[in-house]
């Protein structure tokens, strides 16, 4: 078994809005293991980004607050850390890259300036020369051409793909154990997306950095991840190895999601569409979050909340139909 790097236990993040508290993340538990790529997939408002921001200690407060649970890293609970203590963790132990590389880079500073800043924060004793050398080394590693020249360039002089490479270089420059990538390729064109995903897979292998890949795209999950967590309405609804989830998805939401993607390799006559809309965070308080849109829903689903049932050693599903003893009934419903 691989070593567990990060263990999120019953995480609960609430936003205190004018309309009352909204639980964006509601009892999320998962582990991230050494060197793996874990996919976190879900639609807008499912809590995937809030989960990652909670881990980084970047929830805007107010209105947001971690209201429950623990985030265990190196036997310490990150939720108890002060901002100052978190600053030592961020970048050095856990780094993050975001969707929009243009807005995450400061337009007024050169690429080199921003990269060296990231290093000098955590390595105050390094001489300038060493810092510069490390920055150039990182830029070369992420496949940026002419690193020496680009060092003096400003973000606007770079293309979207190159900016995302700079972001990756900046995130990895202090050798973090964990890289959280929040929709890292969503703003990029397909051909550039393929390059960035290939780069991230390659770096994961070479540097053994564990990656938490947050995405809405099941294609990205299938291509890059070993394990995946599916989120819906602030909760994990299914979790397992990517192979298993794609071949035998257990939760009706995961099943619907997989069926509703138009596959480029062949033409489907008609797409399967999950009825209804993605619920607003915090709008469902009783029963299963997915019950209103689920074609298998029965009375119990609207009253009681299902727990994460174990389907196979590595596979869990939050659906009554996955409960021991219900599986036969499920076969009947499905047939």
């Amino acid at each position: 078994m691989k070593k567990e790097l990060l263990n999120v236990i019953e995480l609960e993040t609430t936003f205190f809005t004018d309309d009352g508290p909204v639980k964006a993340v509601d009892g999320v538990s998962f582990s991230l293991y050494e060197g793996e790529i874990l996919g976190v997939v879900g639609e807008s408002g499912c809590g995937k980004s809030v989960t990652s921001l909670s881990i980084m200690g970047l929830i805007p407060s107010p209105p947001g607050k971690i209201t429950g649970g623990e985030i265990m890293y190196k036997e310490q609970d990150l939720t108890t850390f002060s901002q100052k203590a978190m600053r030592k963790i961020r970048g050095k132990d856990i780094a993050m890259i975001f969707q929009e590389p243009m807005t995450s880079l400061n337009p007024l500073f050169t690429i080199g300036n921003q990269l060296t800043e990231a290093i000098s924060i955590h390595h105050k004793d390094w001489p300038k020369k060493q810092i510069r050398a490390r920055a150039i080394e990182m830029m070369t590693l992420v496949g940026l051409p002419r690193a020496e020249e680009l060092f003096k360039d400003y973000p606007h002089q770079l293309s979207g793909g190159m900016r995302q490479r700079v972001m990756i270089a900046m995130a990895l420059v202090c050798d973090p154990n964990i890289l959280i990538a929040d929709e890292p390729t969503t703003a990029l064109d397909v051909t550039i997306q393929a390059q960035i995903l290939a780069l991230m897979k390659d770096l994961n292998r070479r540097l053994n950095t564990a990656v938490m890949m947050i995405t809405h795209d099941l294609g990205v999950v299938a291509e890059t991840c070993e394990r995946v967590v599916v989120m819906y309405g602030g909760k994990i609804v299914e979790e397992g190895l990517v192979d298993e989830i794609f071949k035998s998805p257990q939760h009706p939401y995961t099943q619907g999601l997989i069926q509703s993607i138009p596959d480029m390799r062949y033409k489907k006559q008609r797409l399967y569409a999950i009825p209804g809309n993605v619920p607003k965070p915090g709008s469902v308080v009783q029963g299963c979050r997915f019950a209103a849109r689920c074609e298998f829903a029965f009375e119990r689903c609207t009253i009681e909340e299902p727990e994460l049932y174990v389907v196979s050693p590595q596979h869990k599903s939050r659906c009554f139909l996955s409960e021991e003893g219900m599986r036969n009934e499920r076969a009947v419903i499905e047939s």
Partner: protein
Amino acid sequence: MSEPLLKVEGLKKYFPIQAGLITHTVGQVKAVDDVSFDVYEGETLGIVGESGCGKSTTGRMLMRLLEPTAGRITFSGREISELSNKELRAVRRDIQMVFQDPYASLNPRHTIGKILEEPLIVHGIGNAKERKARVLSLLNTVGLSDFHAKRYPHQFSGGQRQRVGIARALMTNPKLVIADEPVSALDVSVQAQVLNLMQDLQRDFKLTYIFIAHDLGVVRHISNRVGVMYLGHIVELAGSESLYEEPLHPYTQALLAAVPIPDPDFKREAELIKGDIPSPSNPPSGCTFHTRCPFKMDICTQQEPIFKEVKPGHSVACHLYNDAHHNDIKQSN
């Protein structure tokens, strides 16, 4: 084959690059550079390409929301590229548009009823009572209810808003609907609903679609024929089966190879292309794709390839399909 509903010939749009205190033009962005295609009644023509390839600019020029720099657009046998604004209004009744961002394309201060009624008022269709009735009937057609007419856009989800956008486009009973990235702002589960709705409406109202998108899976799903654009040019145009099963242009091949496939068993065979899309303000000489093309030859840097039919219904602009080279590529495949 019957006459095309829409015929586009040599369409160009150059945007000037201006600089200086006393502004003067220092260059041009060739957003769309010599694009020609036909659209037949009842079909869906997909246009795919990456950002900056000119697909949206093309769509806007067809409606004359942007004035073309050059080229002819013929709709139902009538040339629309030179119509006056007044004449154009009559044609726009038959050509409607659905936009990408349902958040930005609906007026937040108007009720859905008012938004939907507006096209009828503009085109002087029906009296107040008839217009109301049509609003309610189209709301139902797109899967919304009567009471939604009294609501405001912010009270709707993204998918519902896009349904409103589609209903608005259909108010005047158009022949041609130009949909510019209609589902790319939507969640996957809602995207499928909207695609199904568009297919149902096409069948029920005998609509013709031009479907502009960057998602190759979505485009294959909905289109009968697909055109691939790169830096202002259509580089390949074919029936969707033919294009996806046997892409001819190296760019199409690269594009298809780059799409992440939602199947963990899928093994990618083709090599990924390197490099970025060049700037359209300074496009490469010859074939604009030569900077990234794995099959680059000398001729590619010097001479622009001609867009021509190489198989029935399958056209491509690539020097590999000049007669002399035709056999080489066949062998290498």
